[in-house]
C-alpha cells in the first residue's frame, strides 16, 4: 500500500500488490492501474421505492399528530396511572408464572414423550392432544369453576387415608385459576417445542455422552438441553410473547390485569381509544423488553455453535462511535475495537487517492 495514504484509509487496488499487472491480456495504455476509478451501479428502483415508503410514513405520522381524536394528552395522563401500573405488573406476574409452569411441565412432558415407556409416551401425547384442542377461554372458566366439581381438595395416600384438606375456593383464586388455565395449556405447546429441540441435537452427542458413562440426568441437563436450547429459545420466546398478550383473555375472570383495568376505566369515562392505546403501548414496551432478553439468551446459547460471537448492540454502538470519532479527528482507533469491525465500517466508502489522476 502506498505511503501517501493516511493511517486507517484504504484504497482499492487492482491487481493486488505483488502480482504482475494485466494477467490475461496485453496491458492497456492509460492511467496507471492503481488509479482506476470505481463507479457504483445505480439502483433507480430502490430510490423510487424508498420515496414511496417515505411519503406513506410521513402520512401516518402526520395523521397521528394532527387528528386530535387520538387524545394524546389522555394517553399520557393514563400511561403511568397507578391502577394501570398495577395492571401491567399483574400482567407481568401472570406471564412469568404461566411461562415457568408451562415450560417446566412442558419439559417433563417432552421427556415423557421421548421415554421408552409406552404409558408415559401415551399420557404425554394425550395431554398435548387435550390441552391443545380445548379453547383457552373454556379452560379458564373450567378452572375457575373447579370448586363446583371438587369443593374440597385433599392430600393423602392414593385410595387411602387423607391428611390435609383445602377449601377449593380458597386455594384456586382468580390468579391461580388464570395460572392453571394459561400454564397448563402452555405446557402442551412447550412440550412440542422442547421435544423438537431435543430431537434436533445430533445423535452423536447422545452417544458420546453415553460412551463416557455420564449419568443419565447429567447427560440431559449438561449435554443435551443446553444444545437443544439454541433451537428452543426463539420459538419459546414467541410463545412467551403470545402468552403476554394472551393474558388479556383473563379479563373474563375479572382479574385485574392490564386489559381488564383498561376496560374498567374506559367503561367509566368513555375514553375508549386513548385507553386502548395506553394498553397497546404497555404491551409493546413489555414485548420489547422480552425481545432484548431474548437477544442475550440466544447469544448465551450460541457459545460453541459459532466460532466467534457477534457483538452485542451495546458494543456495536460503542465501536461505531469510536471509529467515527477517530475518522473525524484523525485519532487512532482505540484498542479493543476489532480490526474486522473497523474495516467493516469503512466498507463501501471510496477513499479518493490523493493527488491521483481521478
Amino acid at each position: 500500500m502506498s505511503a501517501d495514504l493516511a493511517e486507517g484509509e484504504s484504497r482499492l487496488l487492482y491487481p493486488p500488490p505483488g502480482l504482475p499487472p494485466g494477467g490475461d491480456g496485453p496491458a492497456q495504455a492509460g492511467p496507471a492501474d492503481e488509479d482506476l476509478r470505481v463507479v457504483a451501479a445505480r439502483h433507480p428502483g430502490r430510490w423510487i421505492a424508498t420515496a414511496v415508503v417515505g411519503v406513506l410514513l410521513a402520512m401516518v405520522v402526520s395523521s397521528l399528530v394532527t387528528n386530535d381524536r387520538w387524545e394524546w394528552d389522555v394517553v399520557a395522563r393514563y400511561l403511568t396511572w397507578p391502577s394501570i401500573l398495577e395492571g401491567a405488573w399483574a400482567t407481568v406476574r401472570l406471564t412469568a408464572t404461566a411461562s415457568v409452569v408451562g415450560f417446566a411441565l412442558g419439559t417433563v412432558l417432552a421427556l415423557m414423550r421421548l421415554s421408552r415407556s409406552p404409558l408415559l409416551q401415551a399420557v404425554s401425547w394425550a395431554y398435548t392432544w387435550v390441552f391443545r384442542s380445548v379453547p383457552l377461554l373454556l379452560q379458564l372458566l373450567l378452572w375457575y369453576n373447579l370448586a363446583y366439581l371438587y369443593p374440597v381438595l385433599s392430600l393423602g395416600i392414593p385410595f387411602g387415608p387423607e391428611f390435609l384438606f383445602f377449601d377449593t375456593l380458597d386455594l384456586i383464586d382468580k390468579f391461580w385459576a388464570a395460572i392453571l388455565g394459561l400454564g397448563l395449556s402452555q405446557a402442551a405447546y412447550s412440550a412440542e417445542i422442547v421435544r423438537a429441540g431435543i430431537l434436533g441435537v445430533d445423535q452423536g452427542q447422545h452417544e458420546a455422552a453415553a460412551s463416557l458413562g455420564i449419568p443419565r440426568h447429567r447427560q440431559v441437563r449438561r449435554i443435551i438441553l443446553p444444545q437443544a436450547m439454541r433451537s428452543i429459545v426463539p420459538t419459546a420466546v414467541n410463545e412467551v410473547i403470545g402468552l403476554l398478550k394472551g393474558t388479556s383473555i383473563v379479563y373474563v375472570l375479572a382479574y385485574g390485569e392490564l386489559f381488564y383495568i383498561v376496560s374498567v376505566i374506559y367503561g367509566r369515562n368513555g375514553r375508549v381509544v386513548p385507553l386502548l392505546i395506553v394498553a397497546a403501548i404497555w404491551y409493546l414496551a413489555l414485548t420489547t423488553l422480552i425481545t432484548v432478553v431474548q437477544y442475550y439468551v440466544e447469544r448465551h446459547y450460541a457459545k460453541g455453535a459459532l466460532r466467534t460471537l457477534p457483538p452485542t448492540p451495546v458494543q456495536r454502538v460503542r465501536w461505531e462511535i469510536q471509529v467515527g470519532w477517530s475518522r473525524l479527528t484523525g485519532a487512532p482507533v482505540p484498542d479493543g475495537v476489532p480490526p474486522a469491525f473497523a474495516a467493516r465500517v469503512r466498507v463501501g466508502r471510496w477513499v479518493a487517492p490523493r493527488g491521483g489522476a481521478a
Partner: protein
Amino acid sequence: MTGGLLEIRGVHKSFGLLEALRGVDLTVRPGEVAAVIGPSGSGKSTLLRAINHLEKVDRGFVSLDGELIGYARHGNTLRELTEREILRRRTRIGFVFQNFNLFPHLTVLENVVEAPIYAQGRPRAEAEAEARELLARVGLADRADARPRQLSGGQQQRVAIARALALRPAVVLFDEPTSALDPELVGEVLGVIKELAGTGTTLVVVTHEVGFAREIADTVVFMDEGVVVEQGPPDAVLDNPASDRTRAFLEKVL
C-alpha cells in the same frame, strides 16, 4: 495404564433384515493393538459399538477382564444390567468417534473433565490437573479454554482422544478416527494413537489406513460380511493373506 483383556464370543446383531454381525469371535490380549480392516458395510463399526454396548447384541457376549459388558450372567441366562450399571462399566472403555462428537458448547477442558468428575466421581482439581496433562500429551496444552469449533479437525480428534483417556480406560476403541479429516491432518492424529500404542493400553482401531495398521498393530483383523475372515500379525495378513476375500480387498485399497 494397564490394558484389559477383551473377549468377544459369537456376537450376532441384526438391524431389521440386515445381519450386520453374524457370529464374531475375537480375543484382544491386554496391551495388544488390534487393527480392524475390511470393506464398508462389513460390520466393523457395529462390532466396535457392540463392544461398548452402544448397540445391544442379539446373541453372544463381550467381556472385559471377564466382566460382561451390559449383562450379568446367572447360570445360562444373561440379564441386561440397569442403565446406571452399564454406564459405570463403560467408563473402563474409551471410545473415539469418526466425527469426534465433542460437546460444542463446552470448552476443551470441560469436555475432558466432564466424565472423570460426573461418571467416576473424582475431585475436580485432580481431574483438571490430569486433563491438562493429557492435553499436553496430545499437543494441545494451550487450547484448554477454546471451544471445539474453534479447532481444526485434527485438533478436535486429539481432544476427543484426550477425553477418552481421561477415564483411564483399560481399552480404547477407535472408530475410523481419521476418516473425517483432511489428508494433511491425518498424520497428527495417527501420531497420537501411535504414541498411545506403546503405553500398554489395549487398543482396537477400525481403520482404512492399511499402512498405519501395518505400522502399529500387533494383530490385523480382516472382517467381511459380518464375520472375522482372518486375523494375525500384520505381515501375515497384509502380505500373505490366507483368504481370497482378504486378497481381493487389499488389492483394491493398496
